């Protein structure tokens, strides 16, 4: 039964290759996307640290998105 599952009655090469290519492509794209997101989050935080306290507070006060990014980035790091 296991042998049948692996060989797929002679179609194993095509079936496993199809599923394998899809799986590997999706995993690669997932990790690449995640890495880029983290990179931008870190660059964003670094940029925020270059601001003076007054500028930082003003920026955070005026933007809900900045507050969210800061909150989620702090949790991640």
């Amino acid at each position: 039964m296991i042998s049948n599952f692996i060989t797929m009655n002679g179609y194993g090469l095509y079936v496993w290759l199809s599923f394998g290519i899809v799986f590997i492509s999706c995993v690669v794209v997932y990790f690449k996307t995640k890495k880029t997101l983290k990179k931008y989050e870190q660059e964003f935080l670094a940029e925020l640290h270059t601001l003076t306290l007054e500028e930082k507070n003003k920026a955070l006060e005026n933007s809900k998105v900045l507050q969210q990014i800061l909150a989620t980035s702090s949790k991640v790091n």
Partner: protein
Amino acid sequence: MFKFLSSSNIYPLIQKLIRFINSIFFLILVIGLTFALILSPPDYLQGDAVRIMYVHVPSAWIGLACFSLITFLSVLNFIFKIRNFYFINKSIAPIGLLFTCLAIVTGSLWGQPTWGTWWAWDARLTSMLALMFFYFFYILTFKLLSKERLIIKVSSIIAIVGSINLPIIKYSVNWWTTLHQPASIKITGSSSIHSEMLLPLMVMLLVFLLYAALIFLMKYKTEIIRIKKKNIKRN
């Protein structure tokens, strides 16, 4: 008019959605793979090669759906000038390209045992290849051009011209004699696929949709951060 679509309103939702998809994705993937590789029956004609359908068909559908959405948002962007649609399109395009490529590759792997060839210049296959090139050129505009207005113009033209190809892909199997079989699943009218195969296909479609949504949300979040980073001092 579309104020509710601003990044300030959408951003808090993104993290919640990413967490939600992450929490259910693995379970649905396991269910989908169990159905696709073990529980679903082999085809009376194609045998176990039919299992390739469970990755091929959802890939093709998502590839087509992404381009349709890109075209629709491009037209809306042309009329209403909503900058957010530009970021949404930029985030969707790589997902569409990925799934179109996967549909072509898995289709080729399905074609060899069933048709006896990896590739044929038949209407369905050729029009899918054309879609892949439209995606490629669409993404290239973001990489090569620097002015946002120009990118929006050029990419929208590519999307609108490319959309002519969408009905060709859909109806190619009816208009011409092709190696590719006609659609087994119809939105209107009865489908010719058995429920024992339809159910795994729908579960796998859900898996692919969740994955596409996850990648889209991550890419869209990256876009928002990139813009906010640029404008940080102006805030």
